[in-house]
């Protein structure tokens, strides 16, 4: 079912058609993961009343995303590569186990999602990151993203050195060589802002032929009091850019990327769906109501990541809007679920 859905043109399926197919695929995946992972089966038994046939996507059991930090969940015994979240220091990162089949799916999904934006042939690729991020040992979501983009980008150049400082000579060499035709710039949102944007003055560098693709969350940029709109406007003004695409994805469901459409909302790929849930009772929210984002995806087969409750807040703004020719759910992300600190008897106040 994954293959069937990923092969359709992105966002070309009406929500109701998509749901029927997704449900079938999700039921199959529920059974697959239940049989392949004992810990997962126990969670389904003890937290969800046991495995059954599900009548709607909203009934599919979900796992909270941070569970992948606490447990190593794998559906299968074969050799697997480990993908880690780019965790903050001191915190255990999420660990995701990817076998060749799921890895191939991730590639397929990436290609399908970005082909409409980047075209069918490879174009020159400037990564706003350092080469170190693609080292196979200790691979994080950021590194996997750059590696994934290499499917679209030939001859990748890395704009940052190992210390994550801008190497202007690399950028200038790249621009001089390739700026006559379309090229790809890809990086973490925060790096695009703090490294690329902040290293140049307005008009100093002409990137009018670039397609900028960025992801990684707005939190750090917003902490500098720059909104999504201001970010886009600033980049366009400074570099004469015309195409900037943000996408939402997370390592626990690597490959399921929600890409920005013409209306600046994020669209669900064919093989995924998004449900917004009210925190507390976890019931599905109404369209237009903000809540916690849950993403279901037919992609993950080597680990039970097919139904994940994230720690992100968002709203479904429309379904089958047709804007920019896109059907399915349009998502807007508002931010992270705030970290909650509890009170209590323990504290450390200096002497």
């Amino acid at each position, binding site marked *: 079912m994954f293959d069937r859905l990923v092969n359709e043109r992105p966002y070309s399926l009406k929500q109701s058609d998509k749901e029927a197919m997704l449900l079938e695929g999700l039921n199959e995946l529920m059974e697959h993961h239940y049989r392949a992972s004992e810990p997962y089966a126990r969670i389904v038994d003890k937290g969800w009343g046991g495995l059954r046939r599900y009548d709607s996507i909203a009934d599919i059991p979900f796992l*909270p995303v941070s569970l992948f930090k606490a447990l190593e969940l794998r559906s299968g015994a074969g050799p697997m590569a480990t993908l880690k979240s780019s965790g903050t220091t001191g915190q255990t990162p999420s660990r995701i186990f990817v076998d060749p089949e799921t890895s191939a799916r991730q590639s397929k999904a990436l290609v399908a999602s970005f082909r409409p934006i980047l075209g069918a042939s490879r174009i020159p690729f400037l990564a706003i990151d350092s080469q170190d991020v693609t080292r196979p040992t200790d691979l994080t979501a950021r590194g996997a993203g750059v590696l994934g983009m290499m499917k679209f980008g030939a001859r990748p150049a890395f704009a940052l050195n190992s210390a994550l400082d801008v190497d202007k000579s690399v950028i200038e060499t790249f621009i001089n060589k390739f700026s006559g035709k379309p090229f790809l710039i890809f990086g973490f949102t925060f790096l695009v802002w703090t490294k690329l944007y902040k290293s140049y003055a307005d008009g100093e560098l002409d990137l009018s032929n670039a397609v900028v693709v960025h992801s990684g969350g707005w939190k750090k940029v917003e902490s500098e009091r720059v909104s999504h709109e201001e970010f886009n406007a600033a980049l366009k003004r400074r570099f004469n850019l015309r195409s900037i695409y943000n996408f939402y994805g997370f390592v626990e469901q690597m490959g399921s990327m929600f890409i920005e459409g013409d209306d600046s909302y994020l669209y669900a790929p064919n093989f995924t769906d998004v449900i917004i849930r009210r925190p507390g009772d976890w019931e599905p929210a109404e369209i237009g109501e903000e809540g916690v984002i849950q993403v279901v995806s037919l992609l993950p087969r080597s680990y039970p990541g097919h139904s994940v409750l994230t*720690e992100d807040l968002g709203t479904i703004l429309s379904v089958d809007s047709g804007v920019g020719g896109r059907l399915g759910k349009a998502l807007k992300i508002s931010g992270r*679920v705030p970290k909650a600190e509890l009170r209590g008897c323990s*504290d450390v*106040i200096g002497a």
Partner: protein
Amino acid sequence: MSAILIDAPGGKKVASSREALADRIREARGRLALPFERSRVDTVVAVSELLLTGGGRALPGFVKHFAFWTRKAAVARLASEFAKRLPGGTAARARGVVFHLPPQNVETVFLYSWVLSYLVGNANVVRLPREISAEMAFVRDCFLERLDEAGDPTQMFLHYSSASDLGAAISNESDARVVWGGDAKVALFAGVPLREGGKSVWFGDRTSFAVVNGAALAAQSAGGVRDLAKRMHNDIFTFDQMGCSSPQILYVVGDRAAHLPAVRALLREIAENVLPGGAGVAAGHIMRKMVAAFEAASHDATSTIEWRPGALTTVIAEGAAQSGKRIGGGFLDVAFVPDLAALRPLVRERDQTVTHFGFAVEEIRSLADLLFRSSVSRFAPVGTALDFDFVWDGYDLPFELTRLVRIG
């Protein structure tokens, strides 16, 4: 130089130099009172009356509890029982200057710590965090007004930055020191000397649990279950279940097959019906609880979990072992044990309060005897976990904060 701000009546804060503070502390040592001296008792009772009649504002439960705890009859009983505990031929005296370091986040503790020490005649220096809630400030200010009217400068509530070394300077002038706030804080003060040796009272990390008689629970009427649920809700959700005496585990003495339905009904009642407005703990914490519960569910040792709605998250164990996590904010491990004696190997190193329901007095006394080697220092009925007691963590606080004089 770091600023010292001393609370004054009318919600004001007065800056003080170190030298001025040291002078004031020394002067205060010369103006101690006798334990339970009339004027101090009157001050405490007057404030209690004001709080109990509302003082013109809606006061939260824990303030009302303090007011109830310090009402005339209660203080009179504190005084008479203190006198009864004195060895024959002795008299009690205040220790001198007592330095209080209450926990950052369980606000009411500073009041109890201070009021007991005040009643037994000490001068007191209480370090408060930079911000305290409006309700706590109101109570403190009621006292400050009366102390100011009486021309009594011996009680100091102050604020200073953690970066300063004032803790050491004040300790140096203090005859006793009460440190609340867990092991890390205790460790900070462990090496800090008091005046001439001095007396330290320490409150380190503690955990607590509840034990319920399964048969008694199953026999309750719907009204009885609702009442019990209300009391358990109080114990669990006050201070977000992060107080030392907040129960994190519920042991059920009985038979799983026979009593599980009644236990689940009780838990549902606590979660769904008792929680006002259903809001409670923040979404981020509900998710943290969910992760802990799902993690527990992935292991054999867990029987079932309840995680929806998110107010109360429970992990019911297969046997008696629990998840061992302290999550707080409404996270409860539940385990069945065949009898009270089975609790002995399960009591943890730092367990403090055991709340109980459905047992006879003798059974609890037997349990206390059985657990004589454990750290447990309090057995109390469900619903009273967070109620303060002058005997706390094994200390008889009025006695810790006084000294005895043998008159022969």
